[in-house]
């Protein structure tokens, strides 16, 4: 296996690889932090960092609208909801002495690593050949590009109108369901 085929050939490619590589390392580290931190609030803050890093990885993939959406929806809305619930429930940190009595973390780690290795050899190895970006970048022939709001919006409202409307219905059902769940029972 030739590692040189994976490496970039020009200065621009090296810069891209360095930025994406450091972002990837940060993403994996914060993902480990979500699982490894004992207190839920630290896990949540680690997840916020992870989502921010993912948004920048989306930017590096050229999906500008989705990166912004990631910041707004995930770190702005969903994580605030998580932190709000953690504060409301007043969740304390897990007692670490509980973890010592069974071997679940060890089993989870071993099984995860084994499946990761199997998938990495089975899936990643054939995909090494694909190094070229196929999606159209923004240029003079294609002014709206690939991940810009214009391109995404145009596709969303032409070819994907039906799933878009279904998503709106799903969100409506979600709103009604969460209100029903959170409603305090009126006892007479």
């Amino acid at each position, binding site marked *: 296996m030739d590692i040189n085929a*994976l490496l970039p050939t020009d200065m621009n490619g090296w810069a891209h690889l360095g930025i994406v590589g450091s972002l*990837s390392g940060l*993403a*994996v580290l914060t*993902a480990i932090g*979500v*699982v490894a931190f004992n207190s*839920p609030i630290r*896990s*949540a803050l680690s*997840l916020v960092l*992870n989502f921010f890093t*993912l948004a920048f*990885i*989306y930017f590096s*993939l050229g*999906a500008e609208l*989705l990166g912004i959406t990631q910041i707004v*929806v*995930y770190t702005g809305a969903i994580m605030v*909801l*998580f932190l709000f*619930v*953690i504060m409301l*429930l007043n*969740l304390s940190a*897990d007692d670490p002495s509980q973890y010592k009595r069974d071997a*679940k*973390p060890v089993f*989870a780690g071993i099984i*995860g690593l084994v*499946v*990761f290795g199997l998938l*990495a050899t089975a*899936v*990643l190895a054939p*995909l*090494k050949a*694909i190094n070229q*970006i*196929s*999606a*159209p970048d923004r240029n003079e022939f294609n002014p709206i590009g*690939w991940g810009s709001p214009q391109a*995404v919006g*145009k*596709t*969303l409202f*032409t*070819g*994907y109108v039906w*799933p878009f409307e279904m*998503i709106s219905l*799903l*969100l409506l059902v*979600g709103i009604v*369901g*969460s209100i029903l*769940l*959170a409603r305090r029972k009126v006892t007479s």
Partner: protein
Amino acid sequence: MVLYLAVSMSMFFIGAAGVVVRRNPVVVFMCIELMLNAVNLTFLTFARYAPSPLIERADSTWMAGQMMVIFVMAVAAAEVAVGLGIIMAIYRVRANVDVDEMSSMSG
């Protein structure tokens, strides 16, 4: 491309391990979010590097992955709203929130 996919795969397995290991239901939900985001990153990577030629609409050919990411985000938002509502409802009934001790639904 391999770098993006490796990051996505690591995040997915860390999230899966977290769902198995952690006991706090809120943290379990966070790990589910982590897995959903890993899948989103995979969708975007494939949409960028190896887009599907199967869609006949000419202007939609490159966009299928991004559309799927948008829908996954919407579904994740609805899921978090409902799931946290369920956790709040459970917490109102019993003060101790621990996934291993919630067995009232098992047969």
